[in-house]
């Protein structure tokens, strides 16, 4: 019973387990609901999905599994809804695509395949409406941008920049914001990061120090002398800098995993993004980088030297991007990247660089060597072992 449904969910990479399936069957047995597809949808979601960021995925899987039961032809439905001929729709659709997007569609298996996906997405939206809940865009995987379908055409999100090794990137790109909710195959990463959780006793005294009290009481000849000690808590403070865009896109996946792993481990943790090399500005969110950048200098002033700094980047770039003023591929920088990096390494006690490039390839890239020496040799590969070593260094 429901095994096919369960397998469909697994196919959509939902993290459901057999235990939850049994719960669902148990709920059905106890007649929590009765022969009502909407209610079943809510019940299954309540029992099987434990994270609202996975609702979207669940909806897709649900629509996929039940498509045989509730089939609807999207194009004809659209035709009815908007009174427009199918050809017009297709043409309008193609007209809105840039050459790059067309290439991307080819990669996805052509327009028909895309229409199929659109259809699926559309069904899902129907499903949502039937349930009375709101359309939530969770971003990241959708080729349809945030809005999905609108009558004027389909907005296709630009997923990856197509150029590598940019000489001058003048075109404004919207990079994907790193999503903290990637699949946690990063469990292992978490374990590695656990090593960072050094316990320190700081703050007000709040806990009874039993041993201290006993020995002090004994010394006083039996008069009670209560001793308190500060509570233990995780005092590790971390700043993370992510390289984003350009040649790093191959490694974004790995970075995202690290990102989501790091999210739950520390009390003080801030993320910043940079492009290729660190200059006078970093930014907090990816999309708003043009409008909201932060002075690197103010960053240095704001955070104390006891913060641990982790860079994540492949350090693969033109050498002039590091050591020449104006070397940035995106803007004119007064001071060279290396001087900014020096400012960081001088201010903070502990700085490491994690590099997703395999360690044996490092010697082939001149810029990696430069970066490594700037980091005082504290560069490690982005592997479990490398993170372990880096954290030991911190």
């Amino acid at each position, binding site marked *: 019973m429901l095994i096919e449904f369960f397998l469909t969910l697994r196919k959509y990479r939902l*993290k459901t*387990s057999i*235990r*939850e399936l049994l*719960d669902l069957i*148990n*709920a059905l047995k*106890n007649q*929590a*609901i009765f022969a009502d597809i*909407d*209610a079943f949808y*809510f*019940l299954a*979601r*309540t*029992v099987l*999905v*434990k*994270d*609202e960021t996975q*609702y979207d995925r669940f909806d897709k899987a649900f629509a996929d599994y039940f498509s045989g039961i509730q089939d609807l032809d999207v194009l004809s439905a659209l035709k009815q809804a908007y009174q427009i001929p199918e050809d017009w729709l297709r043409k309008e659709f193609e007209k809105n695509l840039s050459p790059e997007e067309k290439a991307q569609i080819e990669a996805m298996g052509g327009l028909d395949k895309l229409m199929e996906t659109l259809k699926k997405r559309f069904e899902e939206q129907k499903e949502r409406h039937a*349930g*009375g*809940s*709101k359309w*939530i865009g969770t971003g990241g995987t959708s080729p349809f941008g945030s809005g999905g379908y609108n009558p004027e055409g389909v907005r296709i999100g630009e997923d990856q920049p197509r150029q590598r090794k940019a000489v001058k990137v003048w075109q404004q790109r919207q990079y994907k914001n790193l999503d903290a909710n990637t699949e*946690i195959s990063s469990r292992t990463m978490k374990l590695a990061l656990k090593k960072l959780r050094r316990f320190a006793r700081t703050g007000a005294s*709040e806990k*009874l120090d*039993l041993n201290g*009290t006993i020995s002090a*009481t004994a010394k006083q000849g*039996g*008069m*009670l002398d*209560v001793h308190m000690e500060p*509570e233990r*808590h*995780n005092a590790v403070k971390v700043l993370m800098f992510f390289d984003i865009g350009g040649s790093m896109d191959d490694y974004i996946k790995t970075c995202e995993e690290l990102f*989501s792993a790091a*999210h*739950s*481990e520390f009390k003080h943790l801030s993320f910043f993004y940079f492009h290729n090399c660190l200059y006078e500005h970093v930014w907090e969110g990816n999309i*708003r980088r043009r409008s909201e950048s932060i002075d690197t200098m103010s960053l240095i002033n704001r955070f104390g030297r006891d913060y641990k700094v982790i860079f994540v980047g492949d350090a693969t770039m033109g050498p002039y991007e590091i050591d020449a003023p104006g070397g940035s591929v995106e803007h004119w920088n007064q001071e060279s990247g290396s001087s900014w990096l020096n400012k960081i390494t001088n201010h903070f006690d502990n700085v490491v660089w994690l590099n997703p490039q395999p360690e044996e390839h490092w010697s082939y890239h001149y810029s990696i060597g430069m970066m490594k020496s700037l980091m005082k040799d504290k560069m490690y590969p982005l592997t479990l072992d490398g993170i372990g070593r880096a954290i030991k260094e911190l």
Partner: protein
Amino acid sequence: MKFEGTKNYVASESLKLAVHAAMLLEKPLLIKGEPGTGKTMLAQELADSLGTELIQWHIKSTTKAQQGLYEYDAVSRLRDSQLGDEKVHDIANYIVKGKMWQSFDADVRPVLLIDEIDKADIEFPNDLLLELDKMEFHVYETQERIVAKQRPIVIITSNNEKELPDAFLRRCFFHYIDFPNKDEMQQIIEVHHPHIKQDLLTTALEVFFQLRELPHLKKKPSTSELLDWLKLLIAEDIEPEVLRDKSNKGGLVPLFGALLKNEQDVSLLQKLAFMSKRR
């Protein structure tokens, strides 16, 4: 018995079903959602509608799982021994029951609210796995095994500040409270302010949803802020026209303090209003 919302609380179909399933299968129900969408209210209203006791366990960053079970008050025992009190020979006198024990002990099936579980240390949910699953625990000091008389209805809320471990999530049912749309919002407001003038309500809702659409707000106003704001609007007897008049007080809506809790947000709004006036 099915939870149908109360006269003070409007629950969506999916929420009702989630609560129903959790009660039927005796599983903890984990509730997430934007702050102010009524997560904590749910437990209170559920207890009211069932006519049972609500036991609230508010979690802070220093809360330990053990504190929910019981605590051994070593300090008062030590003091009693200094004073030569007879009580001191029975250790059971110094075991203080925690919230979970209280809920295990109740005669009528109670509602146990574990509020804001994400505030605690990351190990906290893991420490409660067995207790939530089997509804029993062991008191080390007295060698006693405590088993729940009947399984309490457990409502857990989280604000998503920390990820919860998978093993913990597997044991819970989960529901995410969506932000209500305009119709639902109207229902909610009618429940709380039955005498509000219709046009004031419509205008206020328009202003409110416009405000939520603004990009870059640090903290979007939520349902509870809207309710507070309406209360003030009624108390001050403000006319709908005043709400519509954008030129008022540098473009800020009246009594904005109830909606915006952040000075950056207020100045952002002022800037936007200024720009729209120049246009």
